[in-house]
């Protein structure tokens, strides 16, 4: 990972020094070593805080909505999964493609610090990765964890490849994997209605309406969110026991249906650990099953499944568990 | 069983909707065994529609139908007259209570000249 970081830093310096770009979007050191945060670097000097490590899970594409409006070009480091969101935003005319220089960077999964903390005792001091081994040093000792068990949930089923790039920094080939990202959705589908309701009621009851999911979601980038739109009939002035509050996640999931790239940021940032991605993934699974496979953000043009149709589409009454009766 | 139930049973057994028939007679126009049929293919459909099943059960045509399915193939309305013939025949065979031919009896009678269709239709014809 260090060598990838070095290359990225070197490239960022070149781009800024030559004036090819006005700024570089990447990650900088956070308060702890495991919480790097997205940052914009405008000078070579600022790059001293630049970092790219196993904890750079954040999707940078959403920042480009604002950045691409600024004067001068913006260079951005995008992981494979981020490029889908990027394409989707270009498709929706939210990012000015011509103002962005995309550097596709290597990603061999990102780690979930919460999972690491759970599996170790003491305060985490350092984390190192060697192939499938994650070596953790804490105030209480040293641990070797199995990497697939401590990666972010989005990385556990990731099979994504770079879909948009002007250049790439890739040092290692990523092994092909056979993963079924719908496994958890299928498990839920196999439950009874009562069990499903109990599951979701339990999960959604944890929601504190902090809006972290909405704020991080690249598909939730509206100039003004529908929940804040007084004409939509769903906005509430106060988050009391009203409509918006109660059905927020249902409405949000429908709003991003057909546009959600399954980047998994919603679940990553949820402070209550609600598996929000399982809501969006249900829509993705249904769309794939009913209307043919579709991956939002695979290209930066074309219609989404909800803005297209065929004359022989399935009738709503014939759909059961996302499949034809 | 009431008459009505018997009629409905037979309609169900035939698996075809006799009300779709538009009385064009194309089935009988195509039937290669027409002369041998005391009740003609189109009559099978209309008689079942009208519930005349006792007359159908007593006819000889069910044994003379070749099960060639030409009538099914040609019907412009997707009705299957041969399926009605078979439904009647099945009912008669079932009333008799035994199979007319068993799988074991087949190999000795097979020679290279016997058409496949004959075996299939014999099976359809004589078995429950």
């Amino acid at each position, binding site marked *: 990972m260090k060598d990838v970081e070095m290359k990225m830093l070197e490239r960022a310096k070149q781009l800024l020094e030559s004036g090819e770009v006005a700024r570089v979007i990447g990650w900088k050191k956070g308060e702890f070593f495991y919480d790097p945060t997205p940052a914009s670097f405008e000078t070579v000097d600022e790059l001293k805080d630049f970092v790219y490590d196993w904890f750079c899970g954040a999707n940078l594409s959403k920042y480009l909505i604002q950045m691409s409006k600024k004067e001068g070009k913006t260079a951005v480091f995008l992981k494979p999964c981020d490029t889908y969101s990027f394409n989707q935003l270009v498709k929706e005319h939210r990012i000015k493609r011509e103002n962005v220089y995309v550097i596709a960077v290597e990603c061999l999964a990102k780690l979930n610090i919460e999972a690491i903390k759970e599996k170790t005792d003491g305060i985490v001091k350092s984390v190192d990765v060697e192939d499938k081994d994650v070596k953790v040093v804490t105030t209480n000792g040293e641990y070797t964890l199995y990497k697939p068990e401590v990666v972010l949930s989005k990385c556990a089923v990731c099979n994504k490849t770079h879909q948009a790039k002007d250049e790439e920094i890739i040092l290692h080939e990523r092994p092909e994997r056979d993963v079924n990202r719908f496994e958890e*959705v299928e498990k*839920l*589908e196999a439950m009874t*209605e*009562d*069990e*499903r*309701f*109990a*599951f*979701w*009621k*339990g999960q*959604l*009851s944890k*929601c504190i309406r902090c809006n972290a999911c909405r704020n991080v979601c690249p598909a939730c980038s509206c100039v003004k969110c529908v929940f804040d739109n007084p004409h*939509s*009939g*769903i906005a509430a002035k106060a988050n009391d*026991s009203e*409509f918006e509050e*109660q*059905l927020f*996640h*249902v*409405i949000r*999931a*429908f709003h991003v*249906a057909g546009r959600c790239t399954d980047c998994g940021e919603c679940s990553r940032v949820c402070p209550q650990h609600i598996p929000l991605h399982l*809501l969006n993934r*249900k*829509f993705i699974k*249904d*769309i794939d099953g*009913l*209307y043919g496979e579709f991956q939002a953000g695979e290209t930066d043009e074309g219609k989404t*499944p*909800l*803005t297209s*149709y*065929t*004359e022989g*589409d*399935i*009738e*709503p*009454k014939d*759909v*059961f*568990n*996302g499949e034809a009766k | 069983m009431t008459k009505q139930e018997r009629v409905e049973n037979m309609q169900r057994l035939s698996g075809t909707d006799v009300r779709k028939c538009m009385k064009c007679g194309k089935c009988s126009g195509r039937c290669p065994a027409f002369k041998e049929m005391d009740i003609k293919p189109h009559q099978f459909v209309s008689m079942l529609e009208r519930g005349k099943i006792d007359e159908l059960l007593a006819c000889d045509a069910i044994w003379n139908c070749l099960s060639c399915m030409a009538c099914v193939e040609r019907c412009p309305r997707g009705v299957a007259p041969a399926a009605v013939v078979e439904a009647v025949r099945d009912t008669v065979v079932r009333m008799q209570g035994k199979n007319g031919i068993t799988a074991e009896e087949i190999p000795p009678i097979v020679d290279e000249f016997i058409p496949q269709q004959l075996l299939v239709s014999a099976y359809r014809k004589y078995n429950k």
Partner: protein
Amino acid sequence: MQEVSTEKKEFVPNIVAFCCNWCSYAGADLAGSSRLSYPANVKIIRVPCSCRVNPTFVLKAFQQGADGVILCGCHPGDCHYVTGNYYTRRRMALLFSFLNYMGIEKERTRVEWVSAAEGARFSAVMNDFVKTVTALGENKRLTDLRVKEGE
């Protein structure tokens, strides 16, 4: 001692029907002028096209206490606005499947295509839907997906 009535009040579901102006609303009118009855607990909201129905309308209805929501539009291919009901069909297929995924009974939601000439069908559809929803009982799930404190 006061006698407590053991007889439960019969459950009458509250049904919201969204009908497109050109086909289904006219079909409902025809059901009326043909005097083809259906229960009074069905209330119709007129929309220009079934594609005007935002999922939030459906959710709002449930949250406000509706026990069943039905959308009616022109038959696919006959949409007054050419393609509107095709979008409705996809949206609602996905929405209803999703609601079922969250544990909401699928039978509470329905999409039916009723043409302006199908008064009898409109009445039959409504009778059937009311029967289905009555059998399910009151909608408690979609009024609030969260556990309230103390529950």
